[in-house]
């Protein structure tokens, strides 16, 4: 029996990492919002690794926070170990990574959603889209017959769409972590002309801590100094727990090899496309046959549980093989499996059907974010969710969408890659995908994005004022370093000698000394007694800006060049088939992706520089005609 259950500005379908950000952003921007989850106890679940951040992903979390998103704050509240990766490899690739208490993370996030003004949290399975005039979404219908009308809908279904769990030769229809799948919405999407893909991912087994012999493993403690994710979190002091490292051996590999025929990956049961960077252990052993052992990280799932995650042993082999294989690993001889490893197949969409705003081109008001767009990872999902939520709200208000460019943020790189190139495997963010990564650092995410977050309305006046003060302190300090001259003296030269640095004979600017690789900003304090008191983050910002100034300037010049083509917009209704001189392949590709700028067009594979020239000329012509 159908009935009208309510009218909203924004409906969010799914309450994973993308859905939570989307719902919070829309509600915070003043839209009447409802978020659906198949099970409210699965809000912000981490069905795979219990950690947040890491290379490139840590940058994403920082960016989410700088724009006014929730992930960083929630991680700060609930992490149990914190680490900075790559600390010696260069400032562009410093990355924050935290082990998180999975259950507490969910509880915190659920509480945040529940407490949010304008936001209604609802358990139900959405089965149908309501479409008006064939091109505009107008709401959704749930499995109980409730109709929710709305101006916009954000789909954040993760791996739930027609989810199928596979463990060896056994499989069933199901969502992640023993939850129900969403089996009907796929059909509704397809009926409305949305093209679907089928992807696959997997997760390792969880074992009981009591059954692990840690004496055979190497302890992996957290960092002493804790760096928070959120720019708003000032300092954190807390007890940290360790992870543990052990290795597979020839015995493990023998068992896997002998049972390969029972793996659904090799028997053909799995149709979905998996990611190259996220191979199962059987995949690693087949593809890298000469490698004698592989790492296994044993990570706690939280403080209130004995469950531990086995990073490195993702598999879809049958349960009996899993048990046998795990028990060959040092320290895991008596391991007691609590949850089996499994592979999951699910429907996602071809993301080239989306605009840069994450709105679908076919159906106005319909947005997609997260794993349903073919990505992988909680952080990638949350980043898209935030943008989709912001843009759904802006659509309701009749405002231009927020689109970040590749030179603004990793979020910009992520979305541009998805909508321009599409993906044929679950897409993971990597620093090597960002051509301007020296500018897109985790330490300056607030400088890059907080003004945008403020303009949009997700950053409070109070936070913005604090941000401006911080920015000013950084700029003033850089100015001071450039102006202040240090005279040669015994004190200065003995300071330099102690660091194997060339002594000075004449006066030298502080900035020159700081440029020397052997001298850190902290060190310099010894001969610079008049310096102002700066926070760690401010001092870091000053040091990076000075030490890498030359490189930063060069990348900024490249960005200037890059922006020229980005700023050449392509009219939405352009008819590529009428452009003489475009090659047929280019016409088809351009028509499929419908790029919003000439710059974006130039990144589509199959579109040549000559095609771009032709397009530029056509656009000039077009502009003239419009006049």
């Amino acid at each position: 029996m159908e009935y009208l259950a309510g009218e909203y500005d924004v409906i969010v379908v799914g309450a994973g990492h993308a859905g939570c950000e989307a719902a919070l952003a829309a509600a915070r921007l003043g839209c009447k919002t409802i978020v659906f989850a198949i099970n409210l106890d699965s809000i912000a679940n981490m069905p795979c690794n219990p950690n947040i951040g890491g290379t490139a992903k840590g940058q994403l979390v920082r960016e989410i926070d700088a724009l006014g998103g929730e992930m960083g704050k929630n991680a700060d509240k609930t992490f149990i170990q914190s680490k900075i990766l790559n600390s010696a490899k260069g400032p562009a690739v410093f990355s924050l990574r935290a082990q998180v208490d999975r259950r507490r993370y969910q509880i915190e996030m659920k509480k945040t959603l529940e407490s949010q003004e304008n936001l209604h949290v609802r358990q139900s399975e959405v089965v149908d889209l309501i479409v008006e005039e064939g091109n505009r979404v107008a709401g959704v219908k749930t499995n109980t017959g409730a109709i929710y009308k709305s101006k916009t809908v954000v789909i954040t279904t993760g791996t739930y769409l027609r989810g199928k769990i596979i463990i060896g030769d056994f499989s069933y229809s199901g969502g992640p972590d023993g939850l129900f799948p969403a089996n009907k919405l796929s059909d509704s999407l397809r009926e409305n002309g949305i093209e679907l893909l089928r992807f696959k991912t997997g997760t390792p087994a969880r074992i009981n801590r009591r059954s692990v012999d840690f004496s055979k493993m190497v302890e992996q403690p957290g960092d002493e100094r804790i760096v928070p994710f959120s720019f708003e979190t000032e300092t954190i002091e807390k007890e940290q727990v360790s992870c543990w490292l052990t290795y597979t051996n020839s015995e493990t590999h023998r068992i896997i090899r002998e049972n390969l025929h029972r793996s659904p990956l090799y028997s053909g049961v799995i149709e979905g496309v998996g990611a190259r960077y996220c191979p199962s252990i059987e995949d690693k052993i087949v593809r890298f046959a000469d490698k004698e052992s592989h790492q296994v990280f044993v990570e706690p799932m939280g403080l209130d549980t004995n469950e531990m995650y086995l990073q490195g042993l993702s598999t879809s082999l049958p349960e009996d093989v899993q048990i046998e294989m795990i028990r060959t690993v040092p320290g895991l001889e008596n391991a007691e499996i609590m949850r089996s490893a499994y592979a999951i197949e699910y429907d996602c969409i071809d993301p080239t059907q989306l605009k840069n705003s994450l709105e679908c081109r076919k159906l106005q008001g319909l947005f997609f974010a997260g794993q349903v767009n073919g990505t992988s990872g909680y952080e990638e999902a949350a980043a898209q969710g935030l943008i989709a939520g912001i843009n759904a709200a802006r659509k309701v208000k009749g405002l231009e969408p927020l689109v970040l460019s590749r030179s603004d943020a990793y979020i910009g790189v992520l979305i541009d890659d998805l909508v321009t190139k599409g993906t044929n495997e679950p897409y993971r963010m990597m620093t090597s995908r960002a051509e301007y990564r020296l500018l897109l650092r985790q330490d300056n995410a607030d400088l890059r994005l907080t003004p945008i977050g403020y303009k949009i309305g997700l950053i409070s006046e109070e936070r913005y004022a604090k941000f401006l003060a911080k920015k000013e302190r950084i700029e003033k300090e850089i100015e001071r370093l450039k102006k202040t001259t240090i005279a040669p003296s015994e004190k200065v030269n003995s300071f330099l000698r102690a660091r194997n640095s060339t002594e000075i004979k004449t006066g030298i600017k502080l900035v020159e000394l700081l440029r020397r690789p052997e001298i850190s900003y902290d060190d310099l304090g010894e001969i610079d007694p008049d310096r102002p008191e700066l926070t760690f983050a401010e001092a870091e910002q000053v040091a990076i800006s000075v030490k890498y100034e030359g490189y930063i300037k060069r990348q900024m010049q490249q960005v200037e060049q890059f922006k020229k083509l980005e700023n050449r917009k392509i009219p939405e209704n352009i008819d590529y088939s009428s452009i003489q001189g475009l090659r047929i392949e280019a016409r088809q590709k351009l028509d499929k992706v419908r790029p919003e700028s000439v710059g974006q067009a130039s990144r589509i594979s199959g579109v040549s520089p000559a095609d771009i020239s032709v397009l530029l000329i056509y656009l000039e012509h077009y502009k003239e005609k419009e006049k």
Partner: protein
Amino acid sequence: MFESDTIAAISTPHGTGGIGIIRISGDEAFDIAARIFKSRKKFNDIKSHTISYGKIVDPSTGETIDEVLLSKMEKPNTFTREDVVEINCHGGIVVLKRVLELVLAEGARLAEPGEFTKRAFLNGRIDLSQAEAVIDLINSKNAESSKAAVRQLEGRLSEKLSVIRKLLIELIASIEVTVDYPEHDIEEITAVQINEELGKIISKLRDLARSFERGKVIREGISAVIVGKPNVGKSSLLNELSGKNRAIVTDIPGTTRDIIEEYININGIPIRILDTAGIRETKDVVEKIGVDRAQREIENADLVIMMLDARTGMEESDTAIYNKIKDKKKIIILNKIDLADKVDEDSLPEGVNIIKMSLKEGIGIEQLEDEITNLFFKGEIISNDEVLLTNVRHKQLIDMAIKSINDARNAYENGMPIDMMTIDIKNAAEYIGQITGESVSEDVVHEIFSRFCLGK
């Protein structure tokens, strides 16, 4: 890449008797010209839209390259509506090319085919009705130059470039995996290792750049082939031409029999000239290889020089050869006229340039040289233009790659972290990729996943 940088190119087709114009357009056009043009007046004092006499001097060596007339034209009243400098050179194609190289070394980018016209259009200089013509031009020019590029890329240049590119991609992948997968038990690459690897790559690139300067790797200018039956005097002609004219490089491949090639220079036109050992049907396998190659060379040649024996005129075996070349631009030489009492002119093909020659007596050589020069400047032998320009572009890209690798090594010397080195290493790979037409980022991601074992 499309708008504000300064572009340069040879803007005249050949056929103007050794005079060529190099056009420079863009914000830096005047700065570049000021650095290389020496005349009585300082460049900055030269009035707009006037022509000045002076010399082009390489600022790094002080060497004078050519005496020229230079036109300076300030925007907006120029063809492209940008600052434009035109340099009229007189020293022939080789000098023209050197001046262009100097302009590029000073910071200009080689213009894409049709790019001046495109800029003129985009800056509102050309009437809109010409839009389609511009599009056609861009398309046809691109097709032409990519054909030229592909032809050059066959063989050794392409092999060497792909080796270098592969080394660069592997190196970038090693760095990226170290950076993106910090906790995996992969062997992390260190700055010292990167620097060593860069040392190897840069010496390969330098070798390549040097061979460009010697004109060894790539063919420039006209490619000409000498054909004719055995003992008609092909080798003597080649010796005569290369002995008399300064041979740039002699290259005798040891593996392929029956083909000898020389790089010579006739009146400033570089020519790669090949002597084929004779095209005839053969059952001898080894010889067949030579003959196959001879036929391929004929297909690729811009000009075929066919030699006949004046004593016999056109025989059956000559006709067989002639049939294979009749669609090519060709010159026919009637050799050994000193030994022939009378030439059977009727047997010779009609409508073809015929030169009577006696290599022994030294008759007809100059006539041949003039005929080649003539064909070249009349533009009847085409394709050398595109090839030449492509070569300049390749050399410039290789030089830029060398500079980038030097920058990366400086970063190492200055104690920069490895991530800073990747910026320049990636630039180097991009430059090489622009020659081979491949992009870097996709390849790196692919390389990372195929070489390293990663995953959760």
